[in-house]
């Protein structure tokens, strides 16, 4: 049977002709190159995917906070102000406009880029051991610090630095605050005899059109010059403290529903003529416990116009106080849904990490799957 069947199959097979296709070799080699390119692409996608996953899951805040490529025109306050831990020090100090400045838990002077949200640790010269105040101007372009009586002001745009040597008047400096015009730096300290002193350094060297009241040095003067926002002495105050031009203390009641046991308020600047940006501390039992940023109407406006907004709850609990470029806080539009900060790790208006990491992950997975399918189809 087998022999007969084989003969019949052989006879049947001989009806098939064969004419070689001269392009076969070239097609095979092209397929080989294409497969290699796809394999390389798939490898890149996998590596990128793994890198992205590692980045998303990493606890290294430096990598997380330094990775965004997003740029916000004009700048914004980040919705999360994280302590990045220890970062590589930037020796080129021309890092551009900043939104936030503070000393991190690693005792580094950290600024957050106003437009990209990146954390940068600056290699500032002549830092004191106690670190002392680090003060960012309201427009986010100037950074001031001191060591003893020496005052330094760095221009973040071009990296140039102004040095104000210690004098008899400021033998030691304890506070540095900026007037709303970002031109006048107010300092408090002691003179060479140990007596209290204070003064104003003008960056432009020109006289300002607005005159500061004598009480201006007690806190942060408002753009109108009518009030000075002053830090609370305790953490259970039921009102934020202001001083008017005559030196009288004016209280601005805090929302009792948010802070039933009171709170501590440290003003950071003025976002408008009558809007104060402050760092508040809510004791346990508060609506927001711990350090957070708030925005509220000053007491020189009628109570009917008062508002109190929480800017962000995510601030370093140990790095107090922060210094904020308050000009980046937008003017209020009257709606409670208005976003006052920007989420640099996701799309604008998102509170969480946003869809971006998940979207990128899905895209990478899709690309990898497509590459795999194409590879299989070409091999089939």
């Amino acid at each position, binding site marked *: *049977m*087998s022999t*007969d*069947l*084989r003969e*019949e*199959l*052989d*006879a*049947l*097979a*001989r*009806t*098939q*002709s*064969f004419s*070689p*296709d001269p392009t*076969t*070799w*070239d*097609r*095979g*080699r092209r*397929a*080989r190159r294409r*497969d290699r390119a796809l394999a390389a692409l798939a490898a890149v996608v996998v590596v990128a995917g793994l890198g992205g996953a590692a980045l998303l899951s990493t606890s290294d805040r430096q990598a997380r906070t330094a990775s965004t490529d997003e740029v916000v025109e004009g700048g914004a306050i980040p919705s999360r102000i994280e302590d990045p831990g220890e970062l590589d020090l930037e020796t080129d100090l021309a890092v551009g406009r900043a939104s936030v400045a503070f000393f991190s838990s690693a005792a580094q002077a950290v600024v957050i880029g106003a437009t990209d949200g990146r954390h940068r640790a600056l290699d500032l010269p002549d830092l004191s051991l106690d670190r002392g105040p680090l003060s960012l101007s309201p427009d986010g372009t100037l950074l001031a610090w001191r060591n003893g009586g020496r005052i330094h002001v760095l221009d973040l745009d071009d990296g140039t630095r102004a040095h104000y040597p210690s004098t008899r008047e400021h033998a030691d400096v304890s506070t540095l605050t900026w007037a709303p015009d970002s031109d006048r730096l107010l300092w408090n300290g002691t003179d060479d005899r140990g007596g209290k002193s204070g003064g104003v350094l003008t960056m432009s060297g020109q006289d300002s059109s607005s005159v500061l009241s004598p009480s201006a040095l007690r806190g942060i003067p408002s753009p109108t010059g009518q009030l000075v926002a002053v830090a609370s002495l305790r953490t259970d105050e039921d009102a934020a403290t202001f001083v008017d031009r005559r030196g009288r203390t004016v209280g601005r009641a805090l929302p009792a529903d948010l802070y039933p046991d009171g709170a501590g308020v440290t003003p950071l600047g003025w976002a408008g003529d009558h809007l104060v940006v402050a760092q508040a501390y809510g004791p346990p039992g508060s609506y927001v416990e711990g350090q957070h940023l708030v925005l509220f109407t000053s007491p020189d406006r009628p109570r009917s116009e008062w508002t109190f907004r929480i800017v962000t709850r995510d601030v370093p609990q140990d790095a107090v106080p922060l210094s904020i470029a308050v000009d980046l806080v937008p003017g209020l539009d009257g709606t409670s849904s208005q976003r006052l900060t920007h989420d640099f790790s996701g799309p604008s208006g998102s509170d969480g990490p946003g869809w971006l990491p998940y979207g990128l992950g899905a895209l990478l997975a899709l690309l990898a799957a497509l590459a795999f399918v194409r590879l299989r189809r070409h*091999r*089939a």
Partner: protein
Amino acid sequence: MTDRSGFDAFVHARGPVLARTAYLLTGDHHLAEDLVQAALVQAAKHWERIHTSPEAYVRRTMYHQNISWWRRRRFTETSLEAYDAPAAAVDPTVRLTLEQALRRLTPRQRTVLVLRYFEDLTEVQTAAELGISSGAVKSMSRQALQRLRVLAPELADLVGADA
């Protein structure tokens, strides 16, 4: 000898033989051409790796490729013919009847039949080529012959009454 000339020499020498096997596997002249060309493209693609024994690679590629193609066609083509009904021989010659009957076998059955009775491979060798067990080869071979007898009773002498 360069890779290209070595490949061309192989195609020139073994192409016709491979095409015959391809025809038996597919039962269609055009599909057979496509099957050989597809296998040769794969051979060109992996020539550096298989140039010492390209024919074994091309044959194995054809066996698997044909089954793979059939799987794809199965979901896109619908036969209007009664599958198990004995086929009426249009041409009284045995060859045409065998050709028709072979087309009614499944690709796996046909492939086993070709390997066993045309390529003269043993059950073990056939199993190795197809990546299946010897028992499966034996079973499929028996089913294929039984089917041929059902489809074309006049082939009983050719395929044996008890094969």
